[in-house]
């Protein structure tokens, strides 16, 4: 346990804070995109409320793609990943810890910024609560599914576009249910079923993605 904590958790956290520019880039992108919409489409509250959930979610998915590669790229390029695979640690647990760190440093700031973003887009409190719930359930899902694709493309130089092509179709169901939940909240309708579906996808990803990621990393070593 302690070797996972010190060797992977602490190491990744230290590295993340040492590369602050890479950490802030996706967040800046997110804030800029969301803040441009009220300027572009005009400040009318009805229009902003209608497009709001979609804008935030699309921006969140795209910004997460920007920072996704960081997950394994450096470790793969400098050979640390080889050493990690030969360390005797269970690779499934290692990737689970790595994803946790990635979520902590990329998604938690997004969650903290979300009140600001929802104010830009004139969301009601009900809508914001729904948005926060979908983000809480959806962002770990993005990290886990994204990590599978990063594992597969880590050996490919300039895999960024490939990564987006692989992942965006997979994130479409998440986008549909998340925005639909916020839309329901706007109409004072229950949105539990949409949340339940996202939660089900999340649980499935929790169960299977560490194995898939570990396998994709092994394949990339060949």
């Amino acid at each position, binding site marked *: 346990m*302690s*070797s996972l904590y*010190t*060797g*992977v958790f*602490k*190491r990744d956290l*230290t*590295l993340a804070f*040492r*590369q602050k520019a890479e950490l802030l880039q996706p967040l800046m992108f997110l804030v800029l995109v969301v803040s441009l919409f009220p300027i572009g489409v005009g400040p009318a509250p009805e229009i902003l409320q209608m497009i709001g959930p979609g804008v935030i979610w699309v921006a969140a998915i795209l910004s997460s793609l920007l920072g996704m590669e960081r997950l394994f790229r*450096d*470790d793969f*390029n*400098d*050979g*640390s990943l*080889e*050493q*990690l*695979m*030969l*360390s*005797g*640690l269970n690779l499934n647990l290692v990737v689970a810890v790595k994803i946790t760190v990635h979520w902590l440093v990329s998604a938690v700031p997004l969650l903290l910024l979300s009140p600001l973003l929802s104010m830009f887009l004139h969301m009601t409190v009900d809508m914001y609560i729904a948005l926060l719930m979908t983000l809480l359930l959806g962002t770990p899902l993005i990290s886990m599914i994204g990590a599978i694709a990063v594992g597969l493309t880590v050996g490919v130089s300039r895999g960024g576009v490939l990564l987006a092509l692989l992942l965006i179709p997979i994130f479409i169901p998440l986008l549909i249910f998340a925005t639909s939940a916020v839309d329901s909240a706007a109409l004072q309708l229950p949105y539990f079923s949409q949340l339940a579906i996202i939660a089900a996808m999340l649980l499935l990803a929790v169960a299977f993605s560490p194995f898939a990621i570990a396998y994709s990393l092994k394949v990339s*070593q*060949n």
Partner: protein
Amino acid sequence: MSGLSASKLTCIKRDRLLFTELSLQVSKGELLYLRGPNGAGKTSLLRILTGLTMPEEGEVCFDGLSIFSPDSTYTDHLVYLGHKSALNSMMSAVENLQYWAAQHSVSLSLQKLYDVLETLGLVGLEDVPVKFLSAGQQRRVALSRLWLKPAELWVLDEPFTALDVEGIALLESLFASHCSDGGMIITTSHQALSPSAGKHQVFDLEYSL
């Protein structure tokens, strides 16, 4: 059967057959010196022997147990140093090695770490981010793992790259003492090993089209 044995290995890379029916055996106290021209498959062979890559056919066993089997404790007995130094350029030598030791469940005191870095002539560079070190100094930091982890088997891919004359002599004497303590070494190199590295077997890989 103690030691590392590989039997009937076949490796195919990008539709090119690198080697087939390759068998080798390393027992305690032996140094296997792997030679061959560029592209002959030395690195591919070493990666198969560490278990990073699966061979197309064949089996690798350590102490009689397949290294690919789930209950193999092979990695506890192994230090592999590849072409890549496995050092994060943003972190210092000490940080890199401490995290590496934690990953490999090697208990390591800071004092020992500083002692090893001193042996390698890296005094004063312990806390400098690795990206500011020269290629040879980075290689020395990577090689310090041989001192830190008590493993019987060392698999080394071109360990002498970028090292100066003193560094090479230091490493060769370490080879000799490791083998006399019953350790095993498999190494590749393009330069001949000097007598101070101790006795060694030579294994030649040929470049096949």
